[in-house]
């Protein structure tokens, strides 16, 4: 695992390496992130995992300490903490079923044409896929989901939509995702979920977390209408 500066007030931990599968690296990243968080190293404000890396953000005091003092100590503390591999106290992995309605216009027809498959086949493949949350990022609560079938891999839109509806279920490249809130978005939207993915009053505020297993369940337009707040 390599530690390098992420500017002058943060560090980047890089777990990528040749020959390891993405899933293995992700497991290591999430375990390390949860362990680091639980360890509460002095001067570390927060720990943010991504697919192969972790951002470790420092407070101004620690970031500005003379490097001979602070960096080696911090690196040692980080490596020691990660070696402990404490069982995650953050939260346990969950299996989550997300209801999705495909009866909206959006990009389904275009994706079907691009993949040379009828829309119903696209939906079928999407519903039978088993997804794993790889990362939460881009927007509050937005999950990057791994497990999109190869046949459904299409590039993102040439120009992003300025406004994607809240609950939009979409994919591009290797990943599927769900836009929790209205936002700009460049992915291909095939459906919408009434499920809330982000709630500031909840603890934690994001419904999904890395390594959660996600599957989608089809609902009708009527069910979508009644489930939305």
């Amino acid at each position, binding site marked *: 695992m390599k530690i*390098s*500066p*992420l*500017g*002058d*007030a*943060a560090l*980047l931990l*890089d777990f*990528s390496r040749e020959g390891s599968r993405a899933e293995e690296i992700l497991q290591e990243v999430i375990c390390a*992130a949860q362990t680091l968080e639980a360890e509460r190293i002095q001067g570390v*404000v*927060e*720990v*943010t*995992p*991504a*697919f*192969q*890396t*972790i*951002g470790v*953000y420092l407070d*101004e*005091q620690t*970031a*500005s*300490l*003379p*490097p001979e003092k602070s960096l080696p100590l911090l690196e040692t503390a980080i490596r020691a903490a990660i070696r402990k591999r404490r069982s995650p106290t953050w939260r346990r992995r969950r299996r989550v079923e997300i209801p999705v309605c495909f009866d909206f216009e959006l990009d389904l027809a275009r994706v079907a044409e691009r993949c040379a498959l009828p829309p119903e086949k696209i939906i079928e493949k999407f519903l039978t896929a088993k997804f794993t949350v790889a*990362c*939460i*990022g*881009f*927007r*509050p*609560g*937005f999950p*990057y989901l791994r497990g999109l079938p190869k046949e459904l891999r299409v590039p993102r839109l040439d120009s992003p939509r300025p406004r994607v509806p809240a609950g939009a279920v979409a994919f591009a490249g290797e990943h599927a995702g769900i836009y929790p*809130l209205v*936002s700009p978005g460049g992915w291909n939207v095939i459906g919408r979920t009434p499920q809330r993915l*982000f709630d*500031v009053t909840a603890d*934690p*505020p*994001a419904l999904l977390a890395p390594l959660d297993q996600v599957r989608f369940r089809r609902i009708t337009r009527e069910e979508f209408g009644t489930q939305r707040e």
Partner: protein
Amino acid sequence: MKLSILSGGLQSSVQDRGRFGSRKFGVTAGGALDSAALRLCQLLVGNDESAAGIEIGGGRFTFRCENERLLAWQGGNVVATIAGEEIPARRTIRLIPNETVEIRASRPGRAWLALSGGIDVDVVLGSRSTDLAGGFGGANGRFLRDGDVLKLGTETIATKELRGQITQRQSDWSAPLFPLRKERLRVVPGKDWTDEAGSEMQRATFRVSVQSDRMGLRLEGHALSVGTGAGEQVSAPVAPGTVQVPPHGAPIILLADCQTIGGYPQIAHLASVDLADAAQLQPQDEVRLFCVALEDARGWLRKRERDIALFRSGLRARFGY
């Protein structure tokens, strides 16, 4: 306890030092684009440095407090007046009830202001900062508007001591000035730095695009032609100050409201102290980027933190709180 906003100016919002601990949920840390400026303003009015104030994006921001308060402000290209009388930046200012304060940018520029008691909006995910993308925090997750009314919190003992020391309008003490360098921003290499790309970046003169906002400054005027050796990559954590290079080559300097992760190559990162300079850059301003050593950047941060600490302890020692 009320603060009435008569005119909200351009892109003004309630901000504090930032929202920490929720990046892993995809929530930006946000906060004042020049957090050092806001912290000094908070100290000047006797608040804790983590209290919430107002970031003024530009235009004309006018307000009135229904009771007696202390005010402090700081910014670039900005003039603050009370009934036509100019009030200086970086000092503690006494407000009498219901007088109108106007903060106006002579040309586009940002400013920060603090009021004793702090802006008392709900704490959401540990912070009072406005999260525009998420639509929460601050004043209902949006920019301030004409007619908004905000609550101010309870004043501290420190505030009362400070007020007692001001006989007329303003204090004889002032917060330290951290001079701006504006057009010459200092960067340290990022994970995707190559000497070739870095050289090209340092030779270029960029201009700030109108497509810039609290999430980042888009630079135009030169597209980096030399790749950083990587196309779009696996998304990785970013930070305010990260300089990204999208495929079209025009760099983006991320600011406080940036997303938590990004897939564009990260060529460099602004020295943290130069985020204050970036916060003042406006569309059409010229920018050049210069590479410095990490140890120098951390040294400047150390000096700034020391100056803020000295100011904080100086006030306490002088006024006994």
